[in-house]
């Protein structure tokens, strides 16, 4: 184990090196570029024995990864923003074909207005593409997810691709101390990928086929079951990870001081740390504040969220996303979890950080005040309500 002062991108690339993918196919895009650069340097200097395929677009990047996975290879790609949207068609081929590809996405704003800075509208727009989606908070978690995601994706009960999301710039370009495991540790955690879901001349089979109305829905049902099975596999994987590397993660979400909290802020990604710090400060003032950090958006932690919020007086969702004409997608998902569990507490949506706009400690304090006092259903930080005027009933 060694310690290095690395950016989120560099830490993630180190995790991928340890995972020994057979094939890397990627197209550079800000703010993901450094991952692709580092991996190509590692291949060049021989410290990573992968076939690195330079492609002409993101559509081709994921197509190559699908082809490699269909040949039984461990395949990696990385993208961001418009690149993710450009490869959207292929996302469904990868998940529908049950190819356990791992992709890193540097969360970035979507055009127009064109903008290279971070928000989460790119990945959240692809929640229905059949990929497991996980959001890292810091560089260490990013590196660790680079290892864990393969084990989850390749588990025979899951066989589903994983998208690991790092907030653009705030995480991808921020340097911090990261523990880099030994290759022997990584190898014992993540054995080589072996699958029957591949082209095999000795055992010919049909891959990536058509399925008509009579059977198509069965494949979709099974993809759904595979995704649901990932819930238990995430827990098992984290437990095995802790045994080898000594770092224990908390499953689909991370609760912070929620047990006795009156007011809980639900969020995801790198802003969670500042939310926890703000909750601590509010507690010193006698306000019982808590934070839920969603780690996995798919599979979605319905039961866990309901359990965390059940005894709160009110909650808010802070997200870098808006589904125009409705509300933030994370808010929709959280409300659905509460409705199914019969939890009836007021909740408010806070849209922030779009196009890389800073979210300050003061903004988060104001959010807690709004949760306490009640506000409009959908609020744009620094602007106000969504103009819809709808009050939460």
């Amino acid at each position: 184990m060694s310690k290095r002062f690395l950016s989120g991108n560099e830490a993630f690339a180190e995790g991928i090196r340890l995972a020994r993918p057979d094939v890397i196919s990627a197209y550079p895009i800000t703010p993901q570029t450094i991952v692709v650069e580092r991996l190509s340097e590692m291949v060049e200097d021989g410290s990573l024995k992968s076939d690195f395929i330079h492609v002409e677009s993101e559509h081709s990047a994921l197509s190559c990864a699908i082809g490699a996975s269909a040949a039984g290879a461990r395949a990696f790609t990385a993208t961001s923003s418009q690149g993710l949207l450009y490869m959207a068609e292929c996302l469904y081929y990868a998940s529908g074909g049950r190819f356990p590809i791992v992709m890193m996405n540097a969360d970035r704003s979507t055009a127009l207005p064109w903008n290279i800075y971070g928000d989460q509208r790119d990945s959240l727009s692809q929640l229905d593409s059949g990929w497991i989606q996980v959001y890292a908070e810091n560089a260490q978690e990013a590196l660790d997810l680079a290892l864990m995601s393969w084990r989850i994706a390749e588990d025979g009960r899951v066989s589903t691709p994983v998208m690991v999301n790092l907030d653009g710039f705030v995480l991808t370009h921020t340097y911090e101390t990261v523990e880099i495991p030994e290759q022997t540790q990584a190898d014992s955690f993540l054995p080589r990928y072996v699958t029957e879901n591949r082209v095999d001349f000795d055992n010919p089979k049909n891959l990536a086929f058509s399925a008509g109305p009579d059977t198509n829905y069965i494949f979709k049902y099974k993809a759904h079951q595979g995704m649901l099975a990932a819930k238990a596999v995430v827990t098992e994987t984290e437990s095995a990870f802790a045994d080898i590397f000594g770092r224990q993660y908390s499953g689909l979400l991370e609760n912070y001081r929620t047990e006795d909290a009156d007011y809980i802020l639900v969020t995801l990604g790198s802003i969670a740390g500042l939310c926890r710090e703000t909750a601590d400060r509010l507690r010193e003032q006698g306000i019982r504040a808590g934070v839920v950090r969603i780690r996995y958006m798919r599979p979605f932690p319905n039961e866990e969220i309901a359990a965390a919020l059940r005894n709160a007086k009110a909650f808010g969702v802070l997200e870098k996303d808006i589904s125009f004409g409705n509300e933030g997608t994370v808010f929709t998902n959280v409300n659905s979890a509460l409705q199914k569990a019969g939890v009836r507490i007021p909740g408010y949506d806070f849209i922030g950080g779009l196009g890389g706009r800073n979210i300050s400690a003061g903004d988060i304090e104001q959010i807690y005040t709004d949760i306490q006092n009640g506000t409009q259903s959908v609020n744009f930080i620094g602007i106000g309500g969504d103009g819809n005027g709808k009050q939460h009933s």
Partner: protein
Amino acid sequence: MKEIIWLGRGGQGAFTAAKLFGAAYTAGNDAHYALSFPSFGPERRGAPVRAFTKLDEKPVLDRSQTEQADYIVVLDDTLYTPALQEQLKPDGRIIVNSKAPIAGTFTFDGEAVAAEFRLPTVNTVMLGIVSALSGYITEEQAVSAVEGYMPEKIQARNTGAVKLAREAVRK
């Protein structure tokens, strides 16, 4: 938490200094945590650049840009304005690479030291100055960061610059 803002122009290595300082602070000390990051966005040679170093004895959770710093380090004196004083904490200091004194700041002729080591930029010179004035990192830590994170062929000249800058402050 201790916070440093680095101000320079694209190509001067302000962010490299920010990164080295964070790496130095955490070098060989598990109780130390740091974040270093540039002002995000497109990079252009010659354009003003900001970079940030945050240091603490617990994990640094606030990833937002520093608004009030303990030190502001200006690598190019044409970027200094008196308005920078408002971005300082009450006991904060501004350090400027400048041949001429500037009221309300600590000035140091970084180019003289850089020239001695045939360095095209003053970033590691100023790193040496801040390390000596602040006491946040030791000389050994500063040197270990240069050796750990700069290309081998320029390490010796940069560690030389760090040491000479620190010596100049002590005098």
